[in-house]
């Protein structure tokens, strides 16, 4: 049995230690906001926060995170600036990529609370969205940053 801390709760799962965290979260714990798209850490839709840092859960094995605290988008409070901004700017289209992008934004804004447009582009240049919600993601990040630093 392997134990995991996810969104403040402890879970016991019976999986091989080399299983990617993504599949443990999705198949064993039913946390489906963590998405699968590329499986090789290229797209960012499977992003979770591990001790506050954005990591791609498809490419780390479950035994790597044993002592870490994992946050998924459900673990962010409803009034989190990133969630509020994402609704205010009406960001999602299909929405499939958004939980991962939101979590990467949380990590980014912790490190860079007051980013320039160029810094936003650079920090978010490795996530994929096929619907093309990018213009609104940029606006939502600016809004979330403003809310955070106020």
């Amino acid at each position, binding site marked *: 049995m392997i134990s995991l801390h996810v969104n403040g709760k402890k879970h016991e799962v019976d999986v091989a230690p080399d299983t990617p965290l993504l599949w443990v979260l999705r198949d064993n714990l039913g946390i489906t906001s963590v998405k*699968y798209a590329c499986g090789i850490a290229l797209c960012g839709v499977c992003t979770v926060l591990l001790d506050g840092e954005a990591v791609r859960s498809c490419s780390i094995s479950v035994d790597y995170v044993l002592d870490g605290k994992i946050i998924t988008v459900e673990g962010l409070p409803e009034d989190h600036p990133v969630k509020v901004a994402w*609704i205010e700017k009406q960001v999602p289209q299909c*929405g499939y990529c958004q939980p991962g992008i939101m979590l990467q934004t949380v990590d980014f804004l912790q490190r860079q609370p007051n980013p320039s447009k160029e810094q936003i582009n650079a920090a978010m240049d490795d996530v994929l*969205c096929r619907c093309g*919600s990018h*213009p609104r993601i940029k606006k939502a990040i600016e809004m979330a940053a403003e809310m955070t630093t106020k």
Partner: protein
Amino acid sequence: MKTEMTRRTFLQKSSLVVAAAVCSSEICLLNISPARGQTGGTFKPHAFVEIAADDTVTVWLGQTNLGQGTHTGISMVVAEELDADWKNVQAKMALAAEPFKNPYWNAQLTGGSTSIRHRWDMLRSAGAAARQMLLEAAARQWDMGAEKCSTEKGRVIHPDGRSLRYGQLVAAAARLPVPENPPLKKPKDYRIIGSARDRLDIPDKVAGRTKYGIDMAVPGMCIAVVARRPRFGAVPESYDAQAAKGVKGVVEVLPMADKIAVCAETTYAAIQGRAKLNIKWSEGTDPQLDNTKLEKLFAEHLQKPGAVAQSTGDASKALAGADVTLEGSYAFPYLAHAALEPINCTAHVEKDCCRIWVPTQGQTAAQLSAAAITGLPIEKIDLMTTPAGGGFGLRGETDPVADAVTISKALNRPVKVMWTREDDFANDYFRPGSVSRVEAGLDEQGHITGWSQKVAAPSILSRIMPQHVKEGIDSTSVQGISDMVYTIAKRQVEYVMMELPIPVGFWRSVGYSTTTYMVETFMDELAGAAGKDPVEFRLAHLEKDSRPYRTLKLLAEKSGWGDRPVQGRTRGIALGSCFGSSAGHVAEISVDRQSGRVTVHKLICAVDCGPAVYPDAIVAQMEGAAVMALSTAFNEKVHFSGGGVKTANYGTYPLLTMSAVPEVEVHIADSIHTIGGIGEPGVPTVAPAVANAIFTTTGIMLRELPFNLDMLRQAGS
């Protein structure tokens, strides 16, 4: 005529109660639409609306939520005519059912940018009929004529100011007949249509609560990952089932006609199991097929005589007599849909019924596929459409449904078929590659005298709708040329159909994704040869006050076309009409001639879609289309090698990312025209607007996609 018929007959048709399929299992994971089931204590005059005693208005939907915002837009149309209180309105996906078929196409599907435009009369009537019944119910209670009462925000109002909530009237209204032709509002009275609303599905998407197809978990289900041909036409000759079964969690290895399914308790076990199959595949259709061979085949086909798709006047005579003639040759790659949610389908086949949960764009086709495999009548195929993580056309295909149903039937348990990303690229029905040659002539006044064009491309319709391929013409291959917005009397359009083993299908904006590029960049070359401004040149070839004419005027005005662009930037423009709407773009770009690097600073879009039901969703669709189209202009091309698909993941199919996404400004026309589509018309004019801007600043017209930026590097720099 057709519209009126549609409007009159649908209410009656959709009021028919369809017997609910009763399955032995007790699983009820998603909404059972009252279109198919029992209702209790609510007012549900037809398949589309249900009003509860607590005033909740449920709009039942048959259109797939791909992220286009139509669930909210459709609800807005219904709520408008119902005079509902918007805060009480919710949208719910219904089980696939007869009333949700496209009234023009007799199939339930989400495609062709039709979700609202093909249901404009129907949806308004659906709301209006319910409103009329509530009005009548209240009037009877007050013992007066309904014409003396009015409705407002979920209430029926008595002339003396008293009112009854819709929720108070549900029982009485439910006893009344459904009016066949209820009166509709005048557009000037709209308070929901055309207003700013928050999308109903966004809070769940932001919270991570939305369950996409891939998230389905049915009790007792296993997960199937399927090994499919690495080369077109290849079939398995030998494989190691035992090795796959040796992976912990793998429950079954199931050989199918040309593929092998590995079924497991978890996704990861299924993926690992498949990797152990060690399949020896047959040679397939053409093991030599690769991009080089494809290029040669395309070039050869363009030399062949084509079938005449359009011939108006004598184009060759017009060209021979022209003052100046220009010609150009073009090439476009195969494109993948590359939606982030990979293709998937969950199915549970039982003796008397079959349940399917799938993010499909083609409900009727999926049901027919399942009916054929199970032998059950279509009424026994309960299909729930889940939200989809992008669609763009691929989700109209039924392969995942057929696989899930076949495997569930064989295993006698629920099955979720999952494609990995590699499966998704390897088994796509691609936007076909194409090549084309065009020649056009100008008279002394700089007016186009004739236009002759030939396209060589694989045919989409030959597989999907062969009955629509007539005399060798697949209309989707020449659309955008044969129905170009410009009035050129003498026109010849030819098509050479190519038969290749690469599967092709619908991809957002279909043929217009290539043809508009050719027409619009060639228009700029012709304008240059005529010594005219691109906007003036286009206007001179457009019917005055037509939809594209007005769109171009709006675009020129909003982009400040007549003003000088910012220092160091140049502008390009492009215009098009498709799926019932007109759209155009102005691109502001700069080119670094040393590296060949192109920066798109800003895109300005104008769109005329007739009545703008849900303006913010229109803006979002135009923004998204701009990003997707820029991605194809700069980045996207599917690679083939060894007789199969070489592109395997996003690493070799790089979608456009944040730093390359410009500011996108959208202007919606205050339109005098009929309602048009929105999902697709924003795509075709983006790439040619950028190309025309590059042409303006470099003198080089890029005639292939994706752009070969090396061509822009100045010799010696």
